[in-house]
């Protein structure tokens, strides 16, 4: 197992290097000039020249990349051109927010998606199945930002139950934190729940028609046991994959949802940084979240390794 893990870990290195180059090259291709974007409305030539000099924007791209990667290896992701704040500090500020939102969304998705998927598979062809399918389809097709705005108008403006925004750290004010995070987590969670429901349903259907389930039924095992002990567990394996991937995506930031609920996480950070041509921030955040995504995938693979002996060969 250790050799497998190490082998996979080494395999990550070229991926990360490629990602870092890709991120760097891609945003250099963005039209617009960071020095110009930074200098602002007045565009004073002197300050443009200063910004170019200070952030080495005059150097060839590979030299810039060299400086950047050398910094990254020492844990220095650079400084935000816009706010003068170190990128590592920004990431440290945003990461807990994004992780909390991602965890809450995934929990909501699991709580809704899995029971609904299992139920609609068991009750296949009944009105219940139909209702679950339609709900899931709406969950997939309703855009997050639209649902978000509707929820704000209903729950915050009309009913006055929850604040429309105003994120607070859970360590400062846990109640306020929960009050502001419920709605965005719900919006994200329901969309994910729809995907989760569809996957659980099809996995369940497959398992329910498999030989061992038929055998179990033939042996006279009670239906409840058949479903929970034999079918459901096995059906969960593909769901774990989907869940992990979804969690990884959430870590990269839920751009629109964060924007609507003004949650200060990665998504909002990246969008603003791109519009302001704040290269260091874009590079740092994208590199960091892709690293998190890759590591998460590794963890999922390790989990299979433990669960499914066939991979061990």
């Amino acid at each position, binding site marked *: 197992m250790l050799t497998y893990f190490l082998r996979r870990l080494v395999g990550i290195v070229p991926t990360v290097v490629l990602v870092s180059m890709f991120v760097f090259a891609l945003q250099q291709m963005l039209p617009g000039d960071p020095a*110009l974007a930074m200098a602002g409305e007045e*565009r004073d030539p002197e300050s443009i020249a200063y910004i170019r000099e200070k952030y080495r924007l005059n150097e060839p791209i590979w030299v810039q990349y060299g400086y950047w990667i050398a910094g990254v290896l020492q844990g220095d992701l650079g400084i935000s051109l816009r706010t003068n704040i170190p990128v590592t500090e920004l990431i440290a500020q945003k990461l807990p927010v994004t992780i909390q939102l991602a965890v809450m969304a995934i929990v909501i998705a699991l709580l809704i998606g899995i029971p609904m998927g299992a139920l609609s598979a068991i009750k296949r062809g009944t009105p219940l199945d139909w209702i679950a399918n339609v709900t899931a389809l709406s969950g997939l097709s309703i855009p997050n930002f639209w649902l978000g705005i509707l929820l704000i108008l209903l729950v915050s403006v009309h009913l006055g139950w929850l604040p429309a925004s105003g994120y607070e750290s859970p360590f400062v004010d846990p109640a306020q934190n929960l009050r502001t995070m419920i709605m965005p987590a719900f919006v994200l969670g329901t969309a994910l729940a729809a995907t989760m429901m569809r996957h659980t349903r099809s996995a369940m259907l497959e398992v329910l028609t498999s030989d061992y389930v038929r055998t179990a039924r033939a042996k006279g095992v009670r239906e409840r046991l058949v479903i929970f002990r034999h079918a459901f567990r096995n059906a969960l394996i593909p769901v774990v994959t989907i869940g992990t991937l979804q969690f990884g995506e959430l870590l990269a930031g839920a751009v629109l949802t964060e924007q609507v609920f003004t949650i200060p996480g990665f998504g909002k950070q990246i969008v603003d940084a791109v519009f302001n041509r704040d290269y260091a921030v874009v590079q740092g955040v994208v590199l960091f979240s892709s690293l998190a995504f890759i590591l998460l995938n590794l963890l999922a693979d390790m989990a299979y390794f433990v669960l499914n002996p066939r991979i061990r060969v």
Partner: protein
Amino acid sequence: MTRKLSLAVTAGLMLLGSAASAETLRIGLADDPDVLDPDQSRTFVGRIVYTALCDKLIDIDPDLNFVPQLATAWSWSDDGKALTMKLREGVTFHDGETFNAAAVKYNIERSKNLPESRRKSEVKSIQSVDVVDAMTVKFNLAAPDATLMATLSDRAGMMMSPKAAEAAGAGLGANLVCSGPFKFVERVQQDRIVGEKFAGYWNADKIHFDQVIYRTIPDSTVRLANLQAGDLDVLERLSPPDIPTVKADGKLKLVDVVGLGYQGITINVGNGDKSKTPLGQDARVRKAVELAIDRVALNQVVFDGAHLPGNQFVSPQSQFYAKSVPMPGRDVAKAKALLKEAGLDKFEFEMQFANNPDATRAAQVIQAMAAEAGIDIKLRATEFATMLKEQTAGNYQSTQVGWSGRVDPDGNIHTFMTCKGGINDSRYCNPEVDKLLEAARQTNSLEERKKLYASAMELLDRDRPIIYLWHPKWIWALRGDIDGYVPYPDAMIRLPGMRKAS
């Protein structure tokens, strides 16, 4: 069962709820400010935040007259090359340091010399600062500079604690120390900036809040929803389509004022090959484009009449508006005649604009109006930073773009229309205009300046490198219980006098 559940949910949510403190003022901003250091920052919203944190040497009143803030009196030398200011006694910075003439000298020198300073060009005319006595300071200029007062009423005139600035250097933005009514407490990027009332403020009696929170909420619908839900007290830049919603809501009120800026069409008349078109080379063609546009209808259709139509670099409400250049009405026949005179039957050009909803609608209406005069405008929606780059590089024929405006008229015109102006993207160059605009900089006589700007405007109206179209109004929405808010044309939210009705 359902009823029980919903009761339980309601009870649970109520348990989570807590009443907001009555002494907090929450202001919704449309953008996130950049670095919070008056010498380094450049964003408009940053200046709104400074209104709470940092006092300036002088301020403006709603009619754009200069009024005392940290300086109580001032006078110019006869040759216009020295400005002497008497400073307010008993002012302390948030770190307890005393405000005096030495602090002013330090601050101006920081604006001039800090490598990261973006104020350098603004304070260029100040050659040196003399500490006359502890509470008197004298600015020595290389040449008369009529724009200096306006400069000192903005970021370059904001006074930071020399001790804190010296210790933090370019890193002052992380913990700004000034002498304004509120002390900096914390900032969460893209979320909020918090200030707490400064007990030692010289004008503390006028401050009726214990805390001010600036929240960044870029989406205008969401910003309004926050105000409606009671999570904000004030929001800036209400989107014009939302005006009816605010008017219909008994709990909200609307405040507006014509701003200092303008919106118009900047035309490439000399910036590279793209200027070599009939539009770029023939003033008659540009005049035809202007005559094809109905400014009043444009404002009605696109903004529900929220803004003020205009045809100059200052609004018709400004004392610098040239009465000799009245706003022309729409005249399609004359536009067609002008095109014919220029040897054109049909004629097309490209116009880029920022890809936001307001600018898009404006561009489409302009396009439709021009089409009736036989002018075919090809629209090119462009992301804002890219648009600026294209404009600077001369890779454009025309742009629908604007300027946020400055207190002194010089700030709306000099850098755009002088041959070597820093933002002269149309590369318009007329030595006659240069001479007039330079002269307007060098005299402190108001009447003289009015005449000079009027003469310059007459020349610009003949050549028309920028077709000025409208002057945006600043629109704020407030909770009904917020009293004492006075709108200023510079759109700053001044906190003294504002209070929450109990």
